């Protein structure tokens, strides 16, 4: 069955596939939460979801609206504090995190703080780091899930809220961030991107069905690298979409149905 799906459903389904069972995943609001729930209800029954307000591994009775609401600690293994879970990240216990942002550059640096203008009087003020800076600094692998367009994928972000590879190889370590951490995958509506080992620049690794590399490049504000073995992303399966629509987000908070 070639299912019909919208771009958000695509993001959630593809995002959920990166998650490994028995790994620890620090989960943000929105699409990442839906992706994690989908993973848990499909191929990762024992993924350990961690929420920044302090909950770990709940059996969520429905889609949380907040990473701090009562659904995140429903039948959780531990309901503790933001300090405790952030310290688990800093200690090296957390494998993955999933983030978003208003801007991202070729090194995976993210902006969720401001667009244009001066810092004290920006054109557009955004929420700020929240936990994003912490997670991208301290978790082992940082994934980004975001729609792709030229306004979002930019040459230079207006503000580095959250560190990617900063300006290239070795820069994170030079700045003082823990070694071995950094961006891992970027899941978009068009493709899956990773990073080149040497340059730390973003590179297309898998094209979603019907999408060409040129289309991706057209929707990106910087020059993209291309993986040697460019793959085709398997589309969302009927079963993935069913679980997503019926069990993960029946109210359509995230997928907008």
């Amino acid at each position, binding site marked *: 069955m070639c299912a019909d799906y919208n771009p958000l459903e695509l993001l959630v389904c593809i995002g959920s596939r990166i998650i490994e069972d028995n790994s620890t995943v620090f989960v943000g*609001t*929105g699409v990442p939460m839906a992706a994690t729930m989908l993973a848990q209800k499909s191929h990762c029954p024992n993924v350990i979801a961690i*929420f*920044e*307000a*302090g*909950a770990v591994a709940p059996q969520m*009775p*429905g889609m949380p*609206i*907040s*990473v*701090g*609401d*009562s659904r*995140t*600690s429903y039948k959780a293994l531990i*309901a*503790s*504090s*933001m*300090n405790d879970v*952030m310290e688990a*990240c*800093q200690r090296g216990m957390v494998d993955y995190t999933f983030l978003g942002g208003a801007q991202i550059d070729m090194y995976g640096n993210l902006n969720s*703080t401001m667009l244009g203008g001066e*810092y*004290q*009087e*920006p*054109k*557009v*003020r*955004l*929420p*700020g*780091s*929240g*936990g*994003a*800076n*912490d997670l991208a*600094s*301290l978790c082992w692998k940082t994934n980004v899930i975001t729609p792709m367009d030229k306004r979002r994928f930019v040459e*230079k972000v207006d*503000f*580095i*809220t*959250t*560190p990617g590879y*900063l*300006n290239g190889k070795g*820069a994170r370590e*030079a*700045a*003082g*961030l823990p070694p071995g951490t950094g961006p891992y995958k970027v899941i978009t509506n068009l493709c899956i991107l990773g990073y080149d080992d040497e340059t730390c620049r973003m590179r297309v690794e898998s094209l979603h069905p019907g999408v060409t590399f040129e289309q991706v490049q057209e929707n990106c504000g910087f020059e993209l690298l291309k993986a040697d073995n460019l793959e085709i992303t398997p589309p969302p399966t009927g079963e993935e979409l069913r679980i997503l629509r019926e*069990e993960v987000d029946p109210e359509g*908070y*995230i997928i907008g149905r």
Partner: protein
Amino acid sequence: MYDDLIGLDAGTEELFTDPDPDKAREFFHHKNRGLVNKVTTIEQAVSVHIKDGDYIAVGGFGHVRIPTALLYEIVRQKKRNLGMAGHTSIYDSDLLATAGCIDRCDISYVIGYEIRGLSASARRAFQSKEIRKTDWSNGALAWRFAAAAAGLSFVPSRHMLGTDTFKRSAAKTVTCPFTGKKFAALPALYPDVAIIHVHNADTFGNCQITEGILVSDAYLARAGKKVIVSCERLVPHEEIRANPQATTIPYWCVDAVVEVPYGSHPGNMPGEYWFDEDYFKMYLDAVKTEEGAQKVFNDYIYNVKGFGEYLEKIGGVKKMRDLRAIEKLIYMNKC
């Protein structure tokens, strides 16, 4: 590109609070340790303990276990020139920023409403120079409270480095004397007043948060020079003593206790009631324009006498019963 950020040794923005642990110690030295009745009214708690110019911090998670009744009262009493910790902050900072109560803010998360989108009025307020800003991460503010709770002036940490978040903070760096490694140094944050909503408190101010997550409230309550607690219900002192492991905030941190059933509406109170999504939708729609914001503040804060009248307005006990049913999964058929 970004080279200036990578070697930066100190943020460039303003530190709004004094991290000096000896000044804080002097304050705590004279804080009352007596087991005295601290129960008061919402009006008195705010008028007695919060002065114009104070730096405040709010417990909970922005729209979860927030002290809404106290926040409304701060707005109603037209407190001005407050500083604020915009830590995991949502409806709380939106209210105070939109109403013009704050003129400076340590930001880690403001304006946003998680999956609901953004508040236009909060965005207008935070885009203006009228609010002086310093940026941090959620972890940074959590650890700044913990540093203050521990009676320190700073703690090391390993995030923020290399970013504009560090540059636009008031953090510095410090070298570990054992490993020679570079860390961020976060200044302890001692708020003048912390306001926190809890499930149960006794009249002395011993507090138990009986369900859900703690965010950083155990630290915040210890870091705050003054602490105002609102609680869903007062409980007998003996009930606290029956389960001392559950005490999150000991009485000696607390200056005032107010009993406010449903005191976190429209927020989620874990184990008690779910978000009032109808209210949030109405609010976020209304504040898209300045006129709309004025009207919703008039209708729900300025022109109501207090939290009791507000509760009637949003649907009273029937509404809260419905939100309890969602929270308790009573009407849900998918769990």
